[in-house]
């Protein structure tokens, strides 16, 4: 999941139909950056993409034969990336555009499950384009839209010119309720600096440095309201409206006490083995007892990846922080489990 410089970076573009994915894609392709992209588009997508290397994908989601519903890969992507690598040197990066109905997890997992794909390419980031006007509706009626927000590293709230400022703030709060860790951008016609969507290294272990929620810093307390009742509740922190989505949520754990690696690893491996289907993503920076180095960890469903990152700095507070984004996360169980890993 990490390192290596000569691997081809892959950006995954998701977003509900009509949100502006194709506009963003065309913007990426037409700007004078001097880079060449191989573009993998879905067969049923919007047309009108002008690029030399363009491949149609079928979005075939294959389960691995362990029988688990979350252990899926994009079979067509394995085949296409293998084929594209025959033309290595003809392009600098790959962009995968998914249909509006696509779940980003199988796409992401493909890069970690298939050895050949993982050896030659690396997942850079999942970028989700959301329609400022319609996202709220989509979050109600389309589970895919929720997945795409929950999974994203970068979210473009597009078509901001079609909504009021108040509506925009509410949309942002809704997104934050699902995914407080993504980089959020407001755009009109998907106009954004390409450096904000490309070359993000969001899956690079060395870059797991910013897992602070983007605008909840000020509050200082954990957001652990998960009430299971049927209405959306909102409440105010530091002047920001904050929604908690009913089933999709994020969970943040932290401790200043060093962790015992002999307790932590069996616990986290067991957790993802059992609750992997409900965990979309996780990320963490960990401090182990008697270990001078920071340990970083990240995962998608049941796939976990971790490594020592660098020595703790002398003036740095040694603490551990672990975040999960998922659906119906067993919060008490996770909190108690994490607490029991203290050395």
């Amino acid at each position, binding site marked *: 999941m990490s390192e290596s410089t000569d691997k081809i970076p892959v950006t995954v573009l998701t977003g509900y139909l009509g949100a502006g994915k194709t506009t963003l894609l065309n913007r990426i392709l037409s700007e004078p950056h001097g880079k060449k992209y191989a573009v993998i588009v879905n067969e049923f997508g919007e047309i009108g993409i002008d690029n030399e290397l363009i491949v149609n994908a*079928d979005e075939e989601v294959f*389960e691995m*034969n362990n*029988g688990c519903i979350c252990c899926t890969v994009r*079979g067509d992507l394995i085949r296409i990336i293998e*084929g594209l690598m025959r033309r*290595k040197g003809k392009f600098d990066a790959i962009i995968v555009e998914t249909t509006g109905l696509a779940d980003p997890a199988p796409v992401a997992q493909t890069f970690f499950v298939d050895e*050949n794909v993982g050896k030659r390419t690396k997942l850079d980031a999942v970028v989700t384009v959301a329609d400022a006007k319609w996202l709220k509706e989509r979050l109600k009626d389309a589970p895919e839209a929720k997945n795409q927000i929950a999974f994203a590293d970068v979210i473009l709230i597009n078509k901001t010119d079609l909504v009021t400022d108040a509506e925009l703030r509410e949309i942002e709060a809704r997104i934050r309720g699902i995914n407080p860790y993504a980089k959020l951008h407001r755009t009109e016609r998907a106009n954004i600096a390409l450096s904000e969507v490309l070359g993000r290294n969001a899956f690079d272990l060395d870059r797991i440095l910013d897992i602070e929620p983007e605008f909840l810093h000020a509050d200082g307390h954990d957001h652990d309201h998960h009430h299971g009742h049927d209405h959306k509740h909102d409440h105010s922190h530091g002047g920001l409206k904050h929604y908690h989505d009913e089933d999709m949520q994020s969970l943040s754990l932290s401790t200043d006490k060093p962790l015992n690696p002999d307790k932590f690893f069996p616990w986290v491996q067991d957790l993802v083995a059992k609750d992997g289907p409900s965990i979309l993503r996780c990320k963490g920076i960990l401090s182990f007892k008697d270990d001078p180095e920071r340990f970083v960890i990240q995962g998608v469903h049941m796939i976990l990846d971790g490594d020592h990152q660098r020595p703790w700095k002398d003036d740095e507070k040694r603490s551990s922080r672990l975040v999960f984004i998922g659906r119906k996360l067993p919060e008490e169980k996770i909190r108690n489990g994490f607490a029991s890993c203290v050395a």
Partner: protein
Amino acid sequence: MTDASTSTPSVIERTRHIAAGAPIVGAHFLGRTAVLVLGEEALLLVPEEGEERRVAVHGGGILSAASDGARVVTGGDDGKVVASGANGDIEILATDEKQRWIDRVATGPDGAVAWSAGKTAHVRTGKGEVRTLEVPSSVGGLAFAPKGLRLAIAHYNGVTLWFPNAKAAPERFEWRGSHHEVNFSPDGKFLLTAMQEPMLHGWRLHDRKDMRMSGYSARVRSLSWTADGGWLATSGAEQLILWPFSSKDGPMGKTPRQLAAFGVRVEVVACHPKQEVIAIGYEDGLVLLVRLDDGAEILAKKPDKVPVSALAWDGAGTLLAWGAEDGKAGTISLA
């Protein structure tokens, strides 16, 4: 790690070195001419005597190649299926109307050729008639049965067996998961696939009995049968893995033979066409020949950290060709 390079007998000095100029993705022999399949656009013909020759076959990447000994058939991302001869003549056998990628190709008896684009498989008989079959998901592998016009099409959750000339509905052999390379045993009794997971799956055709062959460290990409069909040699582990197929139960309930372990992944295997000798290409660039009866090893190429990507024997078994991911290649005369 590979002490073989100092202590083992060697045929390295018989190598004709070739710089193909592009990654090599396959190797075949047409008579005494080695045909190196490059990752893009061309084949490199290497006649036993005389100059190498580059033959342009595709307007892009070459996605797969197969040979019946008379021609090398390639499928490209230009949507073309091309047959090439040892003299450099090429024939375009098919062009996909939507210019879809030709993902897989296979050669069969009497000049039959098969290819696939996405979920669609095609067979072109020796007479030039083309038949088409749609399978439920992208084709992972194609193989003709050793006798008769019968094609195995590997895909998600199984293999479809198809008689392109018969009215009968295709037969489905099911096994959960994604199936890639597919292969019949030379006696036609067993059907094998390499799965997305590091394992092989197999069926005994007459009673559809399943076989699982696991223990690999990587996806198996290279399968080769010994001359008498008694063993299936495979890549995907840190040694040569050979499954016994000489009894009616095949490898069921048996453990594989393991040879030539160096702690380095085997990338490609090629069985000698006449003797029980197997050429093995490793991830670190080593090429070894190993004799089955006593496990004796002969060094054919020293490791150089570049994975071996192709191996082929000529029909007589006196020429061996190897190719590597960096475009280096060689032919070794063993006569």
